[in-house]
């Protein structure tokens, strides 16, 4: 029976497994980053909705506030859509924020969308004091 030399076997196995570990680590970090970004986007969309509902800001001002809010977290949104129906009691206000991240050479779009009805109506005379 010839006894095999097994020294260095663990090293070789480790080298085989290392890319997998690195991939798992990077993947976890990316997923963490994506989730974190998504949560910030949701927060920003909620913030925008509150500014419209309670403070009656204009679309331009809301967009500016959202960009400032996201800049605190080093996020530059790709697109901000503000859907604001005028004199339509049956449709809600919508704020949608889109942000692109790159993962494995692919662009993945993260999107946060918030909706709410607006209680500051135009024909209600005193609540329509716009701060813009």
């Amino acid at each position: 029976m010839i006894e095999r030399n097994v020294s260095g076997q663990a090293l070789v196995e480790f080298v085989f497994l290392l890319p997998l570990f690195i991939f798992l680590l990077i993947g976890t970090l990316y997923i963490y980053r994506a989730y974190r970004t998504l949560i910030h986007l949701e927060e920003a969309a909620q913030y925008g909705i509150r500014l419209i509902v309670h403070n009656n800001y204009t679309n331009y001002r809301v967009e500016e506030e959202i960009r400032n809010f996201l800049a605190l977290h080093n996020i530059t949104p790709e697109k901000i859509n503000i859907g604001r129906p005028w004199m339509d009691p049956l449709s809600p206000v919508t704020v949608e924020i889109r942000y692109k991240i790159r993962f494995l050479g692919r662009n993945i779009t993260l999107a946060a969308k918030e909706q709410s009805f607006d209680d500051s109506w135009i024909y209600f005379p005193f609540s329509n004091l716009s701060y813009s």
Partner: protein
Amino acid sequence: MEGRIHRQNKEKGQILIFSVYVLLVLCFFSILVFNLGRIIYWRIKVQNVCDNIAQSVGCIRARALNVIGLLNLPLGLILTVPRFVWWPQYQCNSMPIEYHVDGDFAKLAQQTVESIVSFQELVRIYGEWYPYIAAYRMCKENQIDNVLFLDSLSLHLKRDKGDIWYWKTCNIGIHFPPYINIHVPAPEPFDIIKKQNTERWYKRNDKEFGKQSVRVLVYKKLKGLFGKKFFKLRDDPVVYSISEVRCYNKSGPMFPPEEGLKDWIEFKFRREKYNIIKWDIKFGGETGLSAVCEYLFALPGWEAQLVPYNIKAKKK
């Protein structure tokens, strides 16, 4: 030597069994991680949708209350002002409405009042029922299964009922300079519509009006999770979320109270010397002046705000 070989043969394959165990554990953990990721994703989404629905319901209620209050204003004015104008001439409990000189005036006045009342009804239906449709639409858009309202969506308003008399006015005019036209109500026998126990302005329901908060429960069944058969789970796990919204008005309730109107008028104006309100007291709070005053004092109106949901506070 033989013994050693024999021992080595016996140890063969033990790593296989170990790896099977480890694989099982790894599979279990990977399933757990996948499922947990999905559950967390949906938990965040369900909470957001729940907040949005609650906020929307509050805003719709606030809108409805504001508009109903706003319509109380012309209704109260129409039913109040002519009464004080004609009262020195006709000391009776009628409510003449001066609207136009010629034509079927009494009918027109009645139509005006009734159209405002029916428009108020429409807005009330919007405030009480549209939240269901809006919530359903928002759920469908966000792939949420269902939404439940844990509180009544009633606006807690009650229609005031009483008598209204619609009078025809006569035009007494001088049609050359200095062109004076005076409108006076026609004498009682001519063209008068008496409506008894008819619908007038909105009052607040004293017992219920304080309950202006709505709790919303949203849930979603997570279908197609990994390992459901493996772990022999009968039902899909359910992610649910609760939010509460409260309508509030910093300035006042905007609607006169249901009972104790006379006391309310005296209390409201004891310190402030509005003489005109004494006229309303003389009529026993029968004019729409209380509706007018309450609306003006309650500006800028109702708003809705999400509040933290507290189970303990509710149980008490």
